[in-house]
């Protein structure tokens, strides 16, 4: 009984987190964001957004309540929110329920003076040709970070900006042999699903979904279990943010989201270096994470909302967001030369990773709507069952593939990069069912 009450209370509390905008202002422009939910981040983001003009409200909210809010506004016809900022994965739900304006004209207008990353513009169309659901806002990714102490154990002849996963395993083993401690760290209680989806699977199989239970995927899991995991700090199972174990010296080499590594680079830029994720037999899988800005059609002031988006896409604001919030620009005109030391290190690694010749950009899952979180659980389960519980690799891959295929069929999601485009629901090549 109490559990249920607690759930309802939690839902209520979540709704309460959506701070109602101040009524005293004269019809302010309201920017609702699912990003920067941490208090200090929200403060910094608010300062940046409010520099646009005095009448701007910056409101942060969790994804679920934000979607509910826009839904409720559409039903009542009374809209307060003017601009919605969220990760790509939030927009399919909004698009599916037809809650957003088409921003094709605004985008063309912005592109007249700025060079926006084409792949992200394409993503913002959600698979359509003539409906721009969002304008790309900012991007992030996951990279590696290392303590300078670790560099002496780097395998001979290895280029840190073009490592392979085999070299990474050798490196981890060398650190273990020299110090007696497992010095590599993975965020198993954090973004381990991104590690599997965007890095391991693409690097070994070339795809995220279609090769899910292929022999290459089995090879990848065997590598992870036998060659890498023995030299990964066992306490990784409780790591959610890698900056803490990096700063404490518990681990020397770590993989995580740039924003989650940022505090380490801010506090001790002289101790750490950032570098691209290693490559596997198929290439260097990496995951760009893109956030976009949309306009709910219940907005009271389209022109003001469009102006705010133009402002957010200006080079100065994009540079401020990078420096203070750790999200990277989506336009080409940003000057990164004047960044603080730590941010510059990270920016260089992000640039090297996305520019790598063997790079396989792997997008966040597209088109799963409200069930977008479920696919992550499939990758987490795969990792847990094979690496931690020691279950048979092919058995795990086949049973999880079956669930993955069911999810794709039920949501009708077609394949997304790096898997080749599909007609209808994405199909696992080696027979998911």
């Amino acid at each position, binding site marked *: 009984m109490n559990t*249920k009450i607690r759930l309802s209370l939690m839902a209520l509390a979540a709704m309460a987190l959506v701070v109602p905008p101040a009524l005293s202002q004269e019809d302010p422009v309201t920017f609702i964001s699912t990003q920067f939910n941490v208090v200090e981040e929200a403060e910094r983001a608010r300062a940046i957004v409010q520099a646009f003009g005095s009448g701007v409200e910056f409101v942060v909210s969790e994804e679920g309540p934000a979607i509910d809010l826009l839904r409720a506004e559409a039903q009542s*016809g009374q809209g307060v929110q003017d601009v919605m900022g969220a990760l790509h994965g939030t927009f399919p739900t909004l698009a599916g329920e037809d809650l957003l304006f088409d921003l094709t004209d605004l985008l063309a207008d912005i592109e007249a003076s700025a060079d926006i990353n084409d792949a992200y513009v394409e993503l913002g169309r959600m698979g*359509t040709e003539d409906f721009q659901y969002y304008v790309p806002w900012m991007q992030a990714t996951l990279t590696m970070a290392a303590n300078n102490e670790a560099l002496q154990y780097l395998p001979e002849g290895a280029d840190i900006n073009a490592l392979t996963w085999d070299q990474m395993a050798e490196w981890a083993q060398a650190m273990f042999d020299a110090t007696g401690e497992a010095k590599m760290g993975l965020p198993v209680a954090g973004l381990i699903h991104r590690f599997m989806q965007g890095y391991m699977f693409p690097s070994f199989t070339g795809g995220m979904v279609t090769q899910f239970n292929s022999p290459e995927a089995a090879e990848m899991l065997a590598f992870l279990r036998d060659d890498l995991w023995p030299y990964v700090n066992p306490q990784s199972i409780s790591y959610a943010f890698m900056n803490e174990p990096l700063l404490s010296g*518990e681990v020397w080499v770590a993989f995580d989201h740039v924003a989650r590594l940022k505090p380490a680079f801010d506090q001790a830029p002289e101790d750490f270096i950032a570098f691209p994720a290693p490559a596997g037999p198929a290439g260097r899988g990496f995951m760009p994470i893109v956030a976009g800005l949309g306009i709910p059609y*219940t907005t009271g002031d389209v022109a003001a909302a469009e102006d705010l988006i133009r402002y957010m896409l200006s080079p100065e604001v994009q540079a401020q967001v990078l420096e203070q919030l750790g999200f990277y620009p989506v336009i080409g005109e940003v000057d990164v030369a004047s960044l603080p030391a730590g941010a510059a290190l990270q920016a260089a690694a992000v640039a090297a990773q996305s520019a790598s010749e063997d790079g396989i950009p792997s997008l966040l899952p597209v088109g799963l709507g409200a*069930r977008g979180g479920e696919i992550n659980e499939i990758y987490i389960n795969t990792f*847990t069952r094979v690496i931690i519980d020691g279950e048979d690799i092919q058995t795990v891959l086949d049973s999880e593939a079956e669930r993955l295929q069911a999810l794709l069929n039920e949501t009708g999601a077609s394949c997304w990069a790096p898997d080749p485009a599909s007609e209808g629901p994405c199909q696992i090549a080696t027979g998911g069912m």
Partner: protein
Amino acid sequence: MRRAKWTPYLLLVPSLFYLALFFLYPMTQAFGLAFSRETQTLSLRAEPVESAATTGALELQTEVVVLDRQQLDETLPNGGTRPSFWYLIQGTDLAGETVEGWASQRSIFIENRRTSETARVTGGEATREWTFEHVNRMLTDFRFSSAISTTLLLMVLIIPAQFVLAIIMALVLQSQVRGSSMFLYIYAIPLGISDLVAGILWFAIFTQRGFLNSLMVSAGLIDLPFIFIRAENISWMISIIVLAEIWRATSIVMIIVVSGLQAIPKDYLEAGEVFGASMWQRLRHIILPLLKPSLQVALILRTILAFQVFAVVIAITGGDILTVLSNETFRWYDPARFNNPSVAAVYAGFIMIVSLAISLFYMRAVRSQDEATKSAT
């Protein structure tokens, strides 16, 4: 007379109202979530308006051919307009018949609103039907059995230890030795600390660079920090959780036991002393039997709380490798994870049924003995 007859019921009304609002209503909601499923079908219209007669229905994900389209100007709540499209589509329904009719852009996915000739059904009217699908998903989830066994294991390890400790602590307080009232404050400290904070505190003690390892390394007992929190040996994690839970929640049992002790008439204990009963005999034959009603309350409370253990487990283990029932409930509920309140409701119902069954068992088991001792005295 009439009035007196109704008074008890009137007095019950506030609590009944409370129960109905905060227990019955959420419970029926959860029951509905747990055993029903929403399916959507798209009703096709004879004309491009929502109110027109239906000409057929299509399932979600049906591929359709676009025969015709119409662009309307939809008036927005703020007075502006935007283009809104209706499509005349043709597809095969569940019965295998080809149906044709109008649908709005809200219900279909179309690559290009102005030129595409095919589309896919993505929305429609929701209908609910009864299903055991969510129960099946819970039962077939690979974490389900480990969540049960871990929860029960924690319960079996924590509760007996807590009761022994709580009775000893209560007797210390009751003994009136010098400074015993100070113990009350010391014992009560963990009561003021939230379970998440308690978990983080114990994590800070046992983590690789935590207090314990730093102490042992600096004392020269070990060369390298020992890693307690590791998947290869979960008994360490279980031990840390048990320690944290005992530290955190024993005092609540103690408070119940203290109040029970104070309700025991001094005469019985004095009579026991007169007849030469030792301290142990008085505990065994006078205090414990008379404490049974309080112990029953504490036992039920602790058992229900044991099924809700959550934050301590999350803080110490991360929640993925070692999991408990309430953590699974949250994993399914969390919008960032499964986002499936239905399976979460099944878990919640499961926890409720198990706690209810155990509480009933306690009430029967402890009451019968209690009554037996009453009739004996």
